[in-house]
């Protein structure tokens, strides 16, 4: 039950804050809009879907990470995190509560963004590929939350989160295969891509949602790699949540 209270509170906090809600809904829509203009300016034979959908996932991943890191830094500096622990909320309840809250936010975002890109790109998705898309976004958002919790330990103020933004954005875009195909990367960069959640998410999206090479993601090893990645991050996040001074 406590997990649910935390998830509810995390959501309320975002929904009650006009800046957060504008940022988390408007930013993905704007990015998709400009991406459309960019793709239109390219030679026509490219598959728009293979850029668009991974970008949607990336935007969710990034916004989830950023909001979570900022909100958690606030929790630390304001002392509400400590107050949660004193009120007897447990560490795992905080982690899972945050995860659920952001999964819900990710779902709303995805619905809005997909509907929007349906209008702009006039794309049609089958029910099964939409289901796959949601499952992938949920798992990805969980890794964003864990990264957010982890990174928030290294920032004493909200502004100190800023240097970590490129650390997350650059590899997620250039080393995940969204923009540059993995086999075109130098070998050192190829091995780095394996520690980037977007790499697995992009593979999953390419295989299961865009090209439907596979019939379902549960037989795709990338899915389990992404989940394993998330689990490792949960353990890391658990240790960065400290309840004593």
């Amino acid at each position, binding site marked *: *039950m*406590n997990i649910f*209270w935390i998830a509810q*509170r995390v959501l*309320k*906090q975002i929904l*009650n*804050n006009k800046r957060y809600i504008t940022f988390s809904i408007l930013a993905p829509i704007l990015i998709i809009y400009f991406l459309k203009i960019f793709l239109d300016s390219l030679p026509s034979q490219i598959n728009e879907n293979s850029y668009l959908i991974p970008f949607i996932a990336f935007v969710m991943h990034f916004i989830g990470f950023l909001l979570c890191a900022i909100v958690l830094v606030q929790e630390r500096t*304001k*002392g*509400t995190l*400590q*107050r*949660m*622990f*004193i*009120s*007897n*909320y*447990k560490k795992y309840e905080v982690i899972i509560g945050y995860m659920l809250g952001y999964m819900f936010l990710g779902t709303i975002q995805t619905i809005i963004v997909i509907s929007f890109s349906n209008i702009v790109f006039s794309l049609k998705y089958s029910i099964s590929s939409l289901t796959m898309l949601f499952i992938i976004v949920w798992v990805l958002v969980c890794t964003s939350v864990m990264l957010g919790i982890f990174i928030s330990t290294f920032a004493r103020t909200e502004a100190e989160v800023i240097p970590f933004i490129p650390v997350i954005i650059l590899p997620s875009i250039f080393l995940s295969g969204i923009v540059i195909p993995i086999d075109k990367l130098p070998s050192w960069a190829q091995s780095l891509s394996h520690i980037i959640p977007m790499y697995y998410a992009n593979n999953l999206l390419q295989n299961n949602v865009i090209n439907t090479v596979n019939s379902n993601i549960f037989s795709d090893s990338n899915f389990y790699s992404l989940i394993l990645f998330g689990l490792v991050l949960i353990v890391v996040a658990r240790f960065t949540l400290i*309840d*004593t*001074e």
Partner: protein
Amino acid sequence: MQNTAIEAINLTKRYNKLLAIDNISFNIPKGSIVGILGSNGAGKTTLIKSLIGITKPNHGTISLLGYDLMKNMSYVRDLIGYMPQDPSLYDDLTVEENISFFGKAKSKYFSRDNLEEVLESTELKYRRKSKVGNLSGGLKKRVSLACCSVNKPQILFLDEPTAAIDPILKVKTWKIFREFVANGKTIVISTHLMDEAILCDYLLILKDGKLLMYDTPDNIIKGGKATIYVNKDNVETVQNTPESIADTLHKFGLNNDIHSVQISNQNIEDIMIELIESKNI
């Protein structure tokens, strides 16, 4: 029946080289209000944080209501409430949402009635739907107080709870504190306000992390000096301790030439200042 609410033995807390709490031991009986006094940086907040297990002491043991704190952390935390020195609230949530969120963590001790009761006693009913971020400093303090008392804990730890609260509500708050401890509960309060200090049952005076004094306000005042002004034709001033007031008056011989006798005891503030400034331990 266990009569001790809080027992601390040889408590020591060090921040690098700084000794924030220096080998302190004390016992706080149930049903009392204990005031922690001391200048800025004396260690009041550190002591409170150690007593509830947010700060790990380097040395010493703490038991709350007979339970060893470190061994029964989760169980004990259900029985206590803590109000931090800074408000520590969610600015984007309303008054009610903040109180319920922290209250619901102890579901056994939370109900709609509790919420209504605490909104009533902190006089926040009319602002229940306001976002905390838009409240004044004093109102935030009241929300913070409501958050930690909504579960009706056995022991309340309050770090400067009335610092920004207006005088009328402060009087009411103290009445609530008194009712609260009347049925065997305990309040530990840190304060800089001497008018509050004398309302406590016991005072714990800290200086540089050391325990200077732990006694009732009455005993502390008795231990202070009294000044006796005797007007015998002209004004004379005599200083001595209250115990020997009679002896002092005796010397004057109470005859018709005595026009007035005035005795003024040192107040708790004077005693505090003297204590903190004189004893260089």
